[in-house]
């Protein structure tokens, strides 16, 4: 199989819109990045500022989740699917004036998969056998096994291309190849990016962009109303959205994220090791009540661990419809003593805290007595997620794209141990024929739904509030990013 994608598609996609407008834009974000290196931390806030704006990878995500050419204008894949030959865009310069060449790609990928790598998504690079620079504009990547998702993986923020010349100071003075250069950072307040006049591709239409960090939902509302920020990405106060929607000065964009929000059940310990009990929980939950109560009506119900806007999604919500009578019958069949006392651990986000209260009430109606324990992130990561898996129930949104494979690991916090599922996931990993992949992904989704691995609640929505006149924003968030390269003010 040979595929070749030209840079023309990208150029056409970016060419839309008027010519250069000399304007600035202030974007509100809830979380401030700890530093500016997307390749050495999990903090989504870093990508939210630098992805596609400052740093670019070989490939890049579009708003619809598609994988497009980035610093690689095209690529050839060998017949056996093991060798990827990337043809790099020529004449690209890093912001410090050094040339972007094949050696930079080798450096970046080797750094990410190296022994002392602190890349938060090191698994993305695990399949790489070797990376070599054929000539300054060509890179050959050899994989240990075919990987249908390899181009997708190279589009992640954790796989952006960095230069050895500027790696030392990347955390405070990031140097990339993007359409914006890093300007300055008033710690705790804002980060400013400047238009990169020497950009290799279609230049950004904004003169500069300022990211302002406002964590408090009420303050975010006030900042938007007072006109301090032009756009607020992932607006944290959904209760105020109708007000913005009704106001002609603002636009509200409702899109999708990759966040599958689930009521995780500890499959590895009593009572949720019993599939009947899990099935009972699934039927005791009324998704729409949770979406209305915790998310003010925003959010798409899901029936499995997969993003509903993905073309390979299978709607399995019918397998776990709201049916409290059935839930009671299943609990009786399972032979557990009622009321069944369990521990529900809730991390800080409001979908978890608010959603948890509603879920608890619904579970009580069928005879399950959850005892709610609110914890902070650090505790949740340590006790629930990582080490002891000391929990019965928890609510969490899994925001990484295509993360269905994580459930194949029996040591994952879900404790789901099904070799048949792991086998399907393994096949998906090496399959590059889209139709077969889709078929396999459908199988995997159905297995999770039929095994009632978790209470599948809803897909986390993305709310963006923007002043009228701001155009070209991403509506969806296929990866955490605020791609400003096509954003401009309407003229």
């Amino acid at each position, binding site marked *: 199989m040979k595929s070749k994608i030209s840079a023309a598609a990208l150029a056409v996609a970016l060419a839309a819109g008027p010519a250069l407008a000399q304007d600035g834009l202030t974007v509100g974000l809830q979380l401030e990045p700890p530093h500016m290196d997307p390749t050495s931390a999990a*903090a989504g806030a870093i990508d939210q500022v630098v992805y596609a704006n400052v740093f670019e990878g070989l490939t890049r995500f579009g708003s619809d989740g598609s994988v497009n050419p980035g610093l690689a204008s095209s690529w050839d894949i060998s017949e056996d699917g093991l060798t990827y030959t990337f043809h790099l865009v020529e004449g690209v310069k890093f912001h410090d004036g050094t040339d972007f060449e094949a050696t930079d790609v080798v450096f970046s990928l080797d750094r990410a998969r190296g022994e002392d790598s602190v890349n938060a998504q090191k698994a993305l690079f695990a399949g790489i056998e070797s990376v070599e620079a054929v000539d300054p504009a060509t890179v050959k990547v050899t994989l240990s096994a075919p990987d249908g998702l390899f181009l997708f993986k190279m589009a992640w923020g954790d796989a952006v291309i960095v230069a050895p010349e500027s790696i030392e100071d990347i955390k405070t003075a990031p140097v990339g190849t993007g359409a914006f250069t890093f300007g300055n950072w008033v710690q705790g307040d804002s980060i400013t990016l400047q238009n990169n006049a020497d950009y290799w591709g279609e230049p950004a239409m904004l003169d500069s962009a300022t990211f302002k960090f*406002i964590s408090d939902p009420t303050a975010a509302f006030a900042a938007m109303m007072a006109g301090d920020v032009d756009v607020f990405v992932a607006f944290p106060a959904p209760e105020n959205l109708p007000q913005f929607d009704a106001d002609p000065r603002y636009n509200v964009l409702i899109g999708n994220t990759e966040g599958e929000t689930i009521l995780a059940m500890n499959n590895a310990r009593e009572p949720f090791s019993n599939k009947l009990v899990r099935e009972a929980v699934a039927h005791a939950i009324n998704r729409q009540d949770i979406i209305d109560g915790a998310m003010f009506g925003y959010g798409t119900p899901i029936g499995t661990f997969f993003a509903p806007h993905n073309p390979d999604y299978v709607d399995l919500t019918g397998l776990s419809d709201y049916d409290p009578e059935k839930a009671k019958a299943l609990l009786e069949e399972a032979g557990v003593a009622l009321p069944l006392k369990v521990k529900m651990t809730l991390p800080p986000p409001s979908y978890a805290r608010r959603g948890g209260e509603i879920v608890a009430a619904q579970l009580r109606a069928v005879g399950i007595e959850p005892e709610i324990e609110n914890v902070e992130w650090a505790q949740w990561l340590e006790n629930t997620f990582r080490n002891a898996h000391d929990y019965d129930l928890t609510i969490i949104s899994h925001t990484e794209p295509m993360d269905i494979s*994580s459930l194949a690991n029996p040591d994952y916090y879900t404790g789901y141990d099904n070799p048949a599922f792991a086998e399907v996931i393994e096949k998906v990993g090496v399959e590059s024929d889209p139709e077969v992949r889709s078929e396999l992904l459908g199988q995997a989704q159905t297995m999770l739904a039929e095994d009632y691995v978790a209470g599948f609640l809803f897909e986390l929505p993305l709310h963006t509030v923007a002043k009228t006149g701001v155009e070209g924003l991403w509506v969806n968030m296929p990866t955490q990013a605020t791609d400003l390269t096509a954003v401009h003010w309407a003229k």
Partner: protein
Amino acid sequence: MLRYTLTRFLSLCLSLAVASVVIFAAIEVLPGDPASIMLGVNAQPDTLAALRSELGLDQPMVARYFAWVTGLLQGDFGISYTYRTPVAQMIADRLAVSLPLALYALGLTVVIAFPVGIWAASRRGSLGDVSVMGLTQLGVAIPNFWFAMLMVLVFAINLQWFSAGGFAGWDAGLFAVLKSLTLPAVALALPQASILARVMRSALLDTLSEDFIRTARAKGLSRRQALWRHALRNALIPVLTIIGMQFSFLLAGGIIIENVFYLPGLGRLIFQAISARDLVVVESVVMLLVFAVILVNFLVELAYAAVDPRLRAR
């Protein structure tokens, strides 16, 4: 005076030493691993181990304590785990917001409280006294974050005189700084001024009933002259104590107001650092605040001596 100062200074040092042990121990026992938070849910064990050793988290606790304290003594606050920048620089950046804010708020507090307290005391029992004291009661009772939001609604959203929050930075000039700090300072000052005015009034009234005031009045001073020349100075000791406590509170306790106005101050730094388990930052900032509180108390005690000659004699 020298002996008084020396004993105060010794107690300052001792308090700091005890505080350092308590702070370090308390923060180290918090559950949660900084590396695990930084690398998120998909991190692999070998990556976590690599980061832990990069951060020095694989060292034993006692070694880390001594490294920290020796660093502090030399003015080296260490490197933040999450931000990877020197903690001293981060604290300096945040102090550039928190210190002026605290001083501004304290200034407003004193400017409001002194005249109000003195005026009310000099008209004890009058309608003016009763209504002003009623207002201060309200000032103490109103939560300052609520008052802050109300001000944002009026002055930022409706009138658009101020921005709803944020800090312009010192590069933007003094006017811009004052503009970003005025609403927060007023919000912080309101309850403090109410408290201080009440303390001022009651301290003055206590003093006014003392024998030496009667003597002064008997010598022919008017009630007002007696108040200004004799009572005020004697009433200052409790007032100074409260001002000292208020300053410490304003420096560290502004976190809610900092959130409402999204100001990059010390309070928010601590909050962020605790949730990220950025232990070095938490330890150093808390230590600094302890130092500030102890230092302010030390200065207040010296100020007692200045207003009360009997203390100087000791």
